[in-house]
């Protein structure tokens, strides 16, 4: 039946991918779906009709707000991420390396502490508005964040990184002669960007938009912390769950997923209308060196200032970590600084255990993501098979669902022995957390890999195979090295996110694998803002070191790749 080896190969590759997706994504999600069909013991779509016909319309309102916030978040994140990616990848200036790495630091901001840092910075009593007030002798603070604008700012702040990373790796893959051709035809810088560079970045932008849209849809901390009671769907799910309406929570989750998946399908359709493979002759020739110095320095200045603003919350955390507890309560500005918080932290002999746990867990999960992500992405981009859309949707589900829902799904699915867990109960064991991280970050790695693979000319693979290389060899020696910089970008992001992952951790961690985010949360719960901040700083430092190392590692690699 299977007509040729190529189809057979596709099947063989598809098999493990499908297995993983079905076992760890579809199966748990189905349980949520089944739950949503259950209304007081009878099966049906009653919960759904309730959702839409509910008298107070809060659900519909929340749904609308979620979509609205998500669309805006995509736009704002893109507006920050794309220009930054452009500046840091197209211009060379002293410190470029530092700034371009620093630009991804927002993602390492521990979520809760991070939002608190925002409040300390920009809230009504925040440092910046008050500093401006005092500086100019104003009567009232000039601005403060809160409500929708607050959510948007925090979303943009944490999510622009997706744009920044995917677009960065795609920019480096663009054949410079394409832009040159446009310049040559008389297009100015702006036109070239809009008509050529930007459209060529479509796969990357689509990938990032998807990721951002979905996390915004599922985003919890920002609306929760910043907008008091602004109603969004993810919060509704949380409250339904707290109120014990598991069926309603499930229904809301399913609807949220449907919205996210519709967005996914729309983006896919949009992207497939055109072709973005730069199958130009030969190798993407030469790097253009033409730069307008004035423009360059203006942009660079903008980029650097941007990054400094982006790093302000980190500095705030640093500041908080240096202020001993109880000395900055009603005062506008802190006055006492010392290392008391760090001293208290380091007195605990177990301080490094959560750190180590986080690193190990993230490493395991991310390794899995790397292998699985590259394989899946290759299948999705370079192979033809029936049911591709289905696989694509499965891949994205972990982002379409709020993290807590994923956590709950896992609990439902794996607190009893199943074949997928080889007959073990996973809940309460070490392995449940890496599994959760892995599932959470499948879409991230797959999407960012898709973006680079889509730009890879097919004839490269063909050349290798006609030279006699088997598929696997070709994959290992040719495809992988070429796409690696892009893939690593996504993987790194996944790793960093795993280190800070909170919502699933809190549901699933055990004594043996308690990660750092939980530790920070606990400090906060005990009102030890300073120690939480100090812990946050340690987390930031660790991640910064990892980034630095991999940047060095990238540096070596990047030189050998296209760019």
């Amino acid at each position, binding site marked *: 039946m299977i*007509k*040729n*080896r*190529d189809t057979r*190969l596709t099947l063989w590759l598809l098999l493990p991918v499908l297995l993983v997706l079905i076992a760890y994504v579809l199966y748990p999600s189905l349980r949520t779906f089944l739950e949503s069909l259950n209304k007081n013991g009878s099966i049906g779509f009653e919960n759904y009709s309730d959702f839409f016909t509910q008298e107070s319309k809060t659900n519909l309102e929340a749904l609308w707000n979620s979509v609205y916030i998500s669309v805006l978040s995509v736009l704002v994140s893109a507006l920050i991420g794309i220009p930054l990616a452009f500046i840091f990848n197209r211009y060379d200036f002293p410190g470029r390396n530092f700034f371009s790495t620093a630009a991804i630091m927002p993602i390492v901001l521990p979520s809760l502490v991070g939002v608190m840092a925002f409040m300390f910075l920009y809230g009504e009593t925040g440092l910046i508005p008050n500093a401006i007030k005092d500086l100019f002798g104003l009567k009232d603070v000039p601005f403060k964040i809160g409500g929708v604008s607050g959510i948007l700012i925090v979303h943009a702040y944490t999510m622009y990184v997706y744009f920044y990373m995917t677009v960065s790796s795609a920019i480096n893959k663009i054949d410079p002669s394409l832009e040159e051709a446009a310049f040559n035809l008389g297009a100015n810088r702006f036109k070239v960007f809009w008509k050529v560079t930007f459209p060529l970045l479509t796969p990357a932008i689509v990938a990032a938009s998807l990721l951002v849209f979905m996390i915004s849809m599922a985003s919890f901390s920002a609306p929760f912390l910043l907008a008091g009671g602004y109603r969004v769907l993810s919060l509704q799910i949380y409250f339904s769950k707290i109120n014990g309406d598991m069926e309603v929570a499930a229904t809301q989750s399913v609807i949220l997923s449907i919205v996210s998946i519709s967005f996914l399908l729309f983006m896919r359709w949009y992207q497939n209308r055109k072709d973005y493979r730069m*199958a*130009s*002759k*030969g*190798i*993407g*020739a*030469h790097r253009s060196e033409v730069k307008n110095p004035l423009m360059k320095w203006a942009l660079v200045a903008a980029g650097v200032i941007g990054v400094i603003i982006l790093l302000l919350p980190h500095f705030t955390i640093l500041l908080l970590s240096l202020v001993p507890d109880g000395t900055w309560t009603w005062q506008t500005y802190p006055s006492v600084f010392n290392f008391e918080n760090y001293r208290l932290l380091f007195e605990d002999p177990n301080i490094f255990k959560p750190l180590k746990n986080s690193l190990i867990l993230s490493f395991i999960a991310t390794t899995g993501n790397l292998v699985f992500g590259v394989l899946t992405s290759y299948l999705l981009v370079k192979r033809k098979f029936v049911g591709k859309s289905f696989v694509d949707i499965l891949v994205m589900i972990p982002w379409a669902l709020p993290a807590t829902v994923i956590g709950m799904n896992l609990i439902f699915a794996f607190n009893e022995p199943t074949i997928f867990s080889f007959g073990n109960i996973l809940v309460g064991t070490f392995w449940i957390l890496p599994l959760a991280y892995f599932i959470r970050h499948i879409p991230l790695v797959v999407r960012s890999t898709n973006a680079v693979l889509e730009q890879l*000319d097919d*004839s*490269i693979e*063909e*050349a*290798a*195979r*006609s*030279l*006699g*290389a*088997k*598929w696997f*060899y*070709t994959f290992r*020696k*040719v495809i992988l*090295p*070429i796409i690696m910089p892009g893939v690593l970008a996504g993987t790194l992001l996944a790793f960093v996110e795993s280190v800070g992952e909170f919502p699933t951790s809190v549901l699933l961690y055990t004594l043996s694998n308690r990660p750092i985010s939980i530790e920070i949360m606990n400090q906060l719960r005990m009102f030890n803002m300073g120690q939480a901040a100090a812990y946050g700083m340690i987390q930031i430092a660790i991640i910064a070191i990892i980034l630095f190392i991999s940047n060095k590692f990238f540096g070596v690699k990047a030189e*050998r*790749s*296209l760019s």
Partner: protein
Amino acid sequence: MASIKIDNVQKAFGKVVAVDGLNLDIKDGEFFTFLGPSGCGKTTTLRMIAGFYYPTKGVVRFGEKDMTRVPPEKRNTGMVFQNYALFPHMTVFENVAFGLKVRKLAVKEVKARVQEVLNKVRLEQYSDRQVSQLSGGQQQRVALARALVIEPEILLLDEPLSNLDAKLRDEMRSEILRLQKEYKITTIYVTHDQAEALSMSDRIAVFNFGVCHQVGTPTEIYNSPANDFVASFIGEINLLPVSLNRVEEDSVYVSSKNGTIIQEITVHNHPHIGEMNEQGDIALSIRPEAIKLVDVDGENVFRATVKEVHFFGSVINVQIEVDQQLLQVHTLNTLLSSKLQPGDVIRIELPKEHMRIIPVISGDAP
């Protein structure tokens, strides 16, 4: 073993039919060329042989073996891609060594063989460069070296020399030929350069719009084109639409269709190549180099006006007008002929043994 048989193959991309009803029989060790205008399906056919496309219909055989759906890496073909398809993350050396490493050769041997082939393509001193730092022609040579080094059973070359200068191209041609003869590699060569095709090939297939018009040796194709498309595609040719007057034992008499001055032209009665449909349109063909500049009148001698003179190096191309019909005349670059000026009136002879009557098929190259 490495003969190739293409059996009634069709390849469609959606609605676009790139290759249709193709039958080819390429012998073991043969140097076979695909010739045809841009977009006629040469690359597509090559890719079906290499295994990158599967035919929509039909069968591809190597020897007796049905290879239609065998994956490319099992075919032992070496291919030079029209767009090179070099591995961007590897150096020149690594690119070339790739095929050998796949074959698990000893490091030493890999080195030796790569060095050897790099010498042949004159890239020895570039071996450590990244391919993105090479010029277009240098990249093309890397692609060639990469395919040659594995000494494949079948060598597929898609315009492998199009970016090289004449001199280097000449050398590469001899090198390819030498290798081909030495290792008896069945070779399929795609080119748009008919001089190249004529000088290198054992046999040539002429394509247009996905259809093969003629398969034959270079002289067959050149001297006895099957129709006006083949005739005009291979080398320059003068085609005069004519109508048949009468046929005698060793001569055919025709007259120019739109002419008034030339009453009758005498043509040798060659056996016709292709079925000449006498109901259909026919044309008189003569190669520009066959037209003679003469001083005296005689059979098939006409008066002509020089319109343009082009200098092509060793050949001079003179455009003349006879009887409202433009004709190309090629003559060697000697002082004599370079003295010709536009406006001169000269006498030309159309030697009857160099003319042919061929069928006219409708349409033109795209």
